[in-house]
């Protein structure tokens, strides 16, 4: 089974600060990590490989420094890594990113399953995974919480829904985006870390993926960010403190005084 896992390097914080002047994320002094959802995608890919044999190739688009995330993916059990990196990719929105990654995946060649995290912790769009599938013209299922390979021609998955889950069967090749309920990622092993240290990371640029330059980077990105700002912190409000019993009684009294309950 040939598995491709798409990952993204993101800042290690859930409290991303935005520079008021430039409207961009403040990345200085913030450690970079693999997008947490993508860790579940890597783990699932490695588990599928361990169960059915084959190979896990991990791919990311980003600056040179994203190589460290690819090495960590190898420490976590991936076999090969591809960095798609070129100044021309700068400023890509989700459409341009999906186009770039799908073009690179075509160069990698054969695959049975593509795995992505549900969404990235910085952009939170959840668009790139499904868009890659569309561009590759293959089926996809998002928010997958369980993968069960049925036979050589079909695969069953559970898609997480608000009120339960859908059971979906698909042919190969197929793309899944995964949620954190799917597994419990392993701690990188010593042999994995040694392999990661020695691994040769393949690098693709605009030329090597044969991309249409009008569809990449800023020129391939219809999304125009007009302004990014921090919404003002809410102030005021009433705070009830004290013993739980008294706080509850005071809160109920206040809410009924206001006619809310």
């Amino acid at each position, binding site marked *: 089974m040939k598995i491709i896992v798409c990952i993204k390097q993101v800042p290690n914080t859930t409290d991303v600060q935005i520079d008021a002047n430039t409207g961009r994320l403040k990345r200085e002094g913030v450690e970079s990590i693999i997008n947490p959802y993508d860790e579940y995608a890597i783990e699932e890919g490695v588990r599928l490989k361990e169960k059915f044999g084959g190979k896990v190739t991990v791919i990311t688009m980003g600056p040179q420094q994203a190589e460290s995330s690819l090495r960590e993916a190898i420490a976590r059990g991936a076999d090969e890594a591809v960095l798609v990196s070129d100044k021309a990719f700068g400023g890509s929105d989700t459409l341009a990113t999906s186009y770039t990654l799908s073009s690179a995946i075509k160069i990698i060649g054969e695959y049975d399953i593509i795995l992505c995290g549900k969404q990235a912790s910085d952009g939170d769009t959840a668009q790139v995974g499904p868009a890659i599938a569309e561009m590759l013209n293959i089926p996809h299922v998002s928010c997958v919480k369980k993968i069960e390979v049925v036979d050589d021609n079909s695969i069953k998955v559970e898609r997480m829904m608000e009120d339960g889950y859908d059971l979906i069967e698909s042919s190969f090749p197929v793309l899944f985006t995964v949620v954190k309920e799917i597994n419990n990622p*392993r*701690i*990188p*092993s*010593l*042999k*994995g*870390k*040694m392999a990661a240290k020695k691994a040769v990371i393949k690098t693709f640029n605009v030329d090597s993926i044969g991309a249409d330059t009008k569809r990449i980077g800023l020129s391939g990105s219809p999304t125009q960010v007009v302004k990014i700002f921090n919404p003002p912190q809410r102030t005021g409000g009433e705070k009830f403190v004290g013993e739980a019993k008294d706080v509850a009684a005071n809160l109920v009294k206040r809410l009924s005084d206001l006619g809310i309950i």
Partner: protein
Amino acid sequence: MVMNYMLSEEEQMMVETARNIAVEKIKPVREHYDEKEEFPWEIVKEFAQADLCGVYIPEEYGGFGKGIMGLVLVVEELCKVDGAIALSLAATALGTLPILLVGNEEQKKRYLPDIASGKKLAAFGLTEASAGSDATGMATTAVKDGDYYVLNGTKCFITNGGDAETYTIFAKTNPSKGARGISCFIVDKGTPGFEFGKKEKKMGIRASSTRELIFKDCKVHKDNLLGKEGHGLMIAQATLDNSRPGVAAQALGIAAGALDEAVDYARKRVQFGQPIASFQGIQHMLADMATEVEAARALLYASARMIDSGTSKRTSKESAMAKLFCSEVAMKVTTNAVQILGGYGYSREYPVEKMMRDAKITTLYEGTSQIQKNEIALNLIKESAAKAK
């Protein structure tokens, strides 16, 4: 910050991996295993998956080849969070060392890869009800019968007993020869005549199993004799020279963990309108604890490096010093951590009472502190006498 002991990149990798497992996997379940006294199989799987089980086993047998120092670093890091769960790995090292030290190529190939991969655990069977510090008092016998030795007797207080697959067992092959009449055997779990007795209920290290091993006409093939007949006691002593740093590492880890808890608590606990860390009485206790922990670490790392360098034939004195010092420091530091946390420290709500209970074993097993002193003194006298010649 800890002092810089110039760890290699690979040594740092082992520390980081052990820390990840300790914090992410062990911390959430440590109370459960202490309370229920269950064997921590789910964590053993984590050790195996992360390649920690074979850090001290040479690469040619599937290990990571990082010697006693590798074992020490991993055990210390794990024990900062829990001093009992790591024993599944540390006591396996004790049971494996006789094979590593004196096993022939066939025995090493047969046993080490499964231990390195974490597929099997090991245990060391020396102690008996009437043979603790004095191993020559053992009553277990191994009588030669054709291609086999027939073992009879009962071992007690065996760490990993019942849960391990591979046992290195000491028995008398020639009772009239005393110290030179003991031999060492590898015995597999499931060998007919090899059974397990009662499981001990203990003060600490409750996530670690401690059982009796019972041999009743248990036939062990002569291919499972380790080293030569009659060399058993020497093998046991050489094993302990190499394994005592592992106990020292357990003690050091527990002490370092308790120190962290005590400093953290002292900063946050407010009495008389200020954090108790602002009181000199508390500060001096913390300063002593930190200094003792660092001194223990320096002595232990130096001993482990000396063993791995292979420059000295015997390292009994240095191993004993590291074990004596680290385990006594662990007792002092954990007791003081409970003192600093006061009533909360005595409560199971905080981890320091468990650390104190777990620490106590380190002054007892693989030789009590008093036995370590005997070992140190004996070697001092021998070294002096050799110089005087």
